[in-house]
């Protein structure tokens, strides 16, 4: 989404860069910087070295102080750039969202039925607006009157139009394609889903999440420890003489030791995490909600629409003795020609496969639509034959002497978790069509991954036990709860929570609202009722319940990225000690032996310190892609995940800086700086 927005508006590109550059500089403001203690310490250090540069007595010492100052300023700029970059990506995303709403005006209804034009920004909760075909919906609301087709592609990216009728919710920014609607506005300006999404991806309303707060606190104390180590090192080194350590070198050591890598990237990680959620078209009401996703223990999933594709499909014809499968297929096809439901279409498709024909002469006759009374549908042909398909007992009651096979097959289908449909011509039963729930492809593998991650999946459905259990086994969920009503779902959530588990669920109906509110993560469907959307802490604009799995992965990736970069940051310090400590005391004769610690063979003390500091600065932009995209995540058990990440970020985090600092030292050597 972010990239497409940029591609569509090549003219805006320089301004985006300009904005990013401006933010990078503005974020250096100490009043902003102080919220990030790690980088604030770097800023204070920079001021000290700058002052030392200005007051240096000798040329060489001024050159050294100046170089350190420049690298420190670069370190600061890399850090502010990382944040500005993440924000700018979010802003690009926000702009494309905002465009869909640009200039929205609304016909506000007044008492008595008249309307007047008002600006979208003037709409308030409770106001009613009239929307004509072609209008953009000015704000979130609920349809009060009328039925119409809505194009929601601006929000969901889905091009198929959606029919909206009274009680349905509509989202600001979508376009009405046909008819006209009266919509009651349910959100004040700035509070609509679009507004919230924009605010979140832009990072404007970003509040630190609990884990981010905890990590910041730990980074703050770690920084304090290193400040303490470096500040006391000066006086302690005085033991060897009054001018043993150089203040600039101490500042360099401090900046190298404090966790600048994670300190610089921490907020970028958080902003980018929200962007990734927005990118999959989920509006999270807070960053906290996304983070909680990583901790989810139990996923409660609906059957229909979530685990299975929304509709049952015909999978088999089971004719009674004396009837060929072809005959049954032929009759079923004819009986279904007027049936436009997905189930009816699936019967036609199955018949086409069995008869190896794609077309058939349109039958002349009078279609009989399905009704709740007769529980069957079909066609009365011109030749007088009455073709019917429908509920088994309804068909049985209409035919003469139904064969035992019909009943047996029907029971067998029900036992296997399917739904049997009986087919009859006049008084003669021909057989059974097996209708079956189809599990979405790839779900079984995903549930297995979730199991490995320790997440239990529970299917909760209103279906009967047999159907539910068959689908549960097919989809590979861990547990199944059949014949459950919304209250049952709420009780299930409360039971899991009483065991200390964190629960996530999806829902769309008003009766799902209490459960959505009770769950730790409630993902409401965009097509759902306003009550459901208000109760959940996330809304999926695509209304795809399987999306819950993606959000869980984003939440986990967010935590892993923070942990990985923190571990990397701390592991890096070892090599920096081996570079700086021997260098900083190289001038003291009695400490000459410490040069044995210079295992990287760095050429000069000054070059060693500059190399370590340059590495420390460069690693920040080098890791921006990881911070923004997130560390690669594969669902697997905690132990395997830990082992892999410890190697990637802990062990390599120790080794890489040794190589990096050595390399930088050689490059500096080419310029005579080492």
């Amino acid at each position, binding site marked *: 989404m972010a990239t497409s927005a940029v591609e569509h508006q090549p003219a805006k590109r320089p301004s985006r860069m300009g904005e990013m550059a401006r933010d990078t500089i503005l974020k250096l403001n100490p009043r902003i910087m102080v919220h990030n203690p790690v980088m604030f310490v770097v800023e204070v250090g920079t001021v000290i070295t700058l002052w030392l540069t200005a007051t240096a007595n000798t040329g060489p010492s001024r050159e050294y102080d100046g170089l350190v100052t420049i690298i420190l300023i670069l370190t600061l700029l890399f850090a502010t750039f990382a944040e500005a970059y993440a924000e700018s990506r979010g802003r690009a995303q926000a702009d494309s969202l905002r465009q869909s709403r640009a200039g929205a005006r609304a016909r506000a209804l007044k008492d008595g039925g008249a309307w007047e034009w008002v600006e979208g920004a003037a709409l308030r909760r409770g106001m009613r607006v009239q929307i004509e075909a072609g209008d953009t919906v000015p704000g979130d609301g609920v349809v009060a009157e009328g039925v119409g087709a809505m194009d929601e592609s601006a929000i969901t990216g889905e091009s198929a139009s959606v029919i909206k009728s009274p009680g349905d919710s509509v989202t600001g920014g979508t376009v009405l394609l046909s008819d006209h609607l009266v919509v009651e506005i349910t959100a004040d300006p700035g509070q609509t889903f679009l507004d919230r999404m924009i605010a979140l991806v832009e990072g404007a309303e970003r509040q630190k999440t609990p884990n981010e707060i905890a990590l910041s*606190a*730990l980074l703050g104390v770690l920084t304090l420890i290193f400040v303490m180590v470096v500040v006391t090192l000066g006086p302690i080194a005085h033991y060897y003489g009054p001018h043993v350590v150089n203040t600039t070198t101490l500042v360099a050591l401090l900046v190298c030791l404090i966790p600048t890598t994670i300190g610089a990237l921490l907020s970028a990680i958080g902003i980018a995490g929200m962007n990734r959620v927005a990118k999959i078209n989920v509006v999270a009401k807070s960053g906290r909600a996304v983070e909680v996703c990583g901790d989810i223990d139990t996923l409660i999933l609906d059957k229909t629409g979530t685990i299975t594709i929304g509709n049952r499909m015909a999978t088999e014809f089971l004719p009674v003795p004396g009837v060929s499968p072809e005959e049954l297929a032929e009759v079923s096809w004819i009986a279904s020609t007027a049936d436009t439901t997905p189930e009816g279409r699936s019967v036609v498709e199955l018949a086409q496969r069995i008869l190896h024909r794609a077309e058939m002469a349109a039958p002349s006759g009078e279609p009989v639509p399905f009704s709740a009374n007769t529980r069957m549908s079909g066609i009365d042909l011109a030749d007088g034959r009455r073709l019917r398909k429908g509920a088994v007992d309804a068909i049985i009651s209409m035919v003469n002497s139904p064969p035992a096979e019909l009943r047996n097959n029907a029971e067998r289908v029900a036992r296997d978790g399917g739904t049997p449909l009986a087919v009859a011509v006049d008084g003669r039963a021909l057989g059974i069509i097996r209708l079956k729930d189809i599990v979405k492809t790839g779900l079984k593998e995903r549930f297995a991954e979730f199991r490995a991650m320790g997440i239990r999946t529970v299917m909760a459905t209103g279906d009967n036990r047999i159907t539910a259990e068959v689908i549960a086994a097919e989809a590979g969920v861990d547990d199944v709860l059949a014949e459950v009503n919304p209250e049952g779902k709420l009780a299930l959530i409360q039971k899991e929570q009483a065991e200390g588990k964190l629960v996530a669920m999806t829902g769309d109906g008003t009766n799902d609202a209490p459960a959505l509110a009770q769950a730790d993560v409630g993902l409401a469907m965009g097509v759902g009722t306003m009550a459901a959307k208000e109760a959940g802490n996330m809304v999926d604009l695509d209304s795809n319940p399987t999306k819950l799995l993606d959000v869980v992965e984003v939440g986990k990736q967010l*935590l892993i990225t923070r942990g990985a970069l*923190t571990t990397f940051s701390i592991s890096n310090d070892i090599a920096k000690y081996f570079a700086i400590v021997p260098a900083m005391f190289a001038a003291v004769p009695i*400490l000459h032996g410490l040069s044995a610690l210079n295992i990287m063979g760095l050429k000069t003390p000054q070059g060693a310190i500059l190399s370590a500091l340059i590495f420390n600065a460069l690693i920040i932009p080098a890791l921006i892609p990881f911070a923004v995209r997130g560390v690669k995540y594969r669902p697997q058990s*905690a132990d395997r995940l830990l082992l892999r990440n410890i190697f990637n970020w802990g062990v390599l985090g120790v080794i890489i800086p040794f190589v990096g600092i050595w390399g930088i030292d050689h490059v500096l050597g080419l310029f005579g700086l080492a």
Partner: protein
Amino acid sequence: MTVSTIVSWAVVIGGLLLLLKPMGTYMYKVFTFQPTLLDRPLKPLENLIFRIIHVTRDSDMTAWEYGVSFVLTNMVWALMAYTLLRVQGALPFNPEHFSNVNAGLAFNTSASFTTNTNWQAYSGENTMSYFSQFAVLEFLQFVTPASGGAVGLAFIRGVSGRKLGNFFVDLTLLLTRVLLPLALIFGVAFVAAGVPDTLAPYLHLHTLAGQTQIVPRGPIAGWEAIEHLGQNGGGFTNANSANPLENPSAMTNVLQSIAMGLVPVAFFYMFGLFSGKKRLAWTLIAVAGTLFLAMLAMIYFPEAAGNPIINALGLHGHGNYVGTELQQGMGGTSIFETSTMSFTTGSVASAHDSFLPIPGLAVFLGMFLNMVFGGKGVGLMNMLMFVILTIFLMGLMVGRTPEFLGKKIEAKEVSLTAIAFLLHPLLILAGSALAVSTSAGMAGVFNAGPQGLSEILYGFTSGAANNGSAFGGLGASLPFYEVAIGITMIIGRYASVVVMLLVGESLLQKKAVPETSGTMRTDTPLFWGILLGSVVVLNALTFFPIMALGPLAEHYLLVAHHLFS
């Protein structure tokens, strides 16, 4: 390696391994108020004590109440000790007629013995009356380790999801059920092995050379028992366990080493029983055990290889025996010193000052880490502090909010834990920096080169770690050090312990999260490696610069055959 080395190591390590399970199980029963063998003789006595101080076994305290009781009780003891030392001249059992202890020394000594540091800025045989030795200092050697152990118990209970308990109940039971019975057993064993235990005056002997030698003695065997059982470490005499009257044989040497480790190691196992995570307890024992063996190797092998400068003269083959008690040999000395630095006892059977730099680094290591089993209860708390930090740092990489024993570690716990971690290096670094930058501090440095700096660092490290051993050669009896190290000991003892107690309570109040395969496991070889790695890295990052200026600098000078006149 000689047979005696191997045997002495095997006896100490094997003995501790054999004893940790029965001892831990016994203590678990005592502190969960289950019936034990000693109930019959001791319960009436304990009930009487509880009635007098108006507590019952189930009068639970909050972390704050527990912490305040701990600190206030200790303050009362310190005040009492200070007063009694100041007037020892007027008190009985003073056959050598020692005068009152001066104010600075009395402060330093009462702070030192109350904080279970047992740093001695005096030599016992020339300063303390028998009364001061057994009624003041030995009393403190019983009660102060018991009070530290009690806090450890409360912490274990908190993280295991139980109420914290009552400080006075725990203190009483640690004395009646653990320290006093053990001290009786070890005391009798030491008497049997030839350690004196008497109130008679010092012996005046006429030597073969025709001179008179004064041999100090006193109630030593009982002192030795609790000195080691309580990880106290203050010697009855200045030479401590290098004095043949305190540690006469190879048998007493290994017995003292075992006595030091017995209760701290059992605390680790007891933690496993309390938390229901025995495998976690074994993982922690394995981490501490690995560090113990590393220290043992760092002390023994360089010492056995000898001083390279002397070896270069062709006099090699005998190891560096300078400052070592010859009768215990290299093997006995190395296991005793490793034990005393691991368990933060601080009694010594050799002069740490005379160690080569790498063994010197090893003894520093024990005090920096302060969790290689450590003092009873307190060492475990330090270990769990690292466990919490490690879980928080690494645990994020499994994609869940880090959990410890089923409780989420959030901002409050991680901040408090990090502050507890910060205090230890703060005391060491700030104290040393102060000493080096003031003339009062530099006046106590008697050795040139890195050794002199190491002596200062050692003094503050020993005080902060409540170890109490010293690098000789520092003028520790100067007023500057008496006060500065005294304050270091007090903050080192109380601040981090109370902070960790608050962490324990905060975890207790959280809802338990069930363990799933998505939970980071803490009882695997992988976690052993991660914990070990992060303990080493976090400490290296904090202490590497000062170690480079001290022992490491000295090591490279030694390798370069540099001599100081």
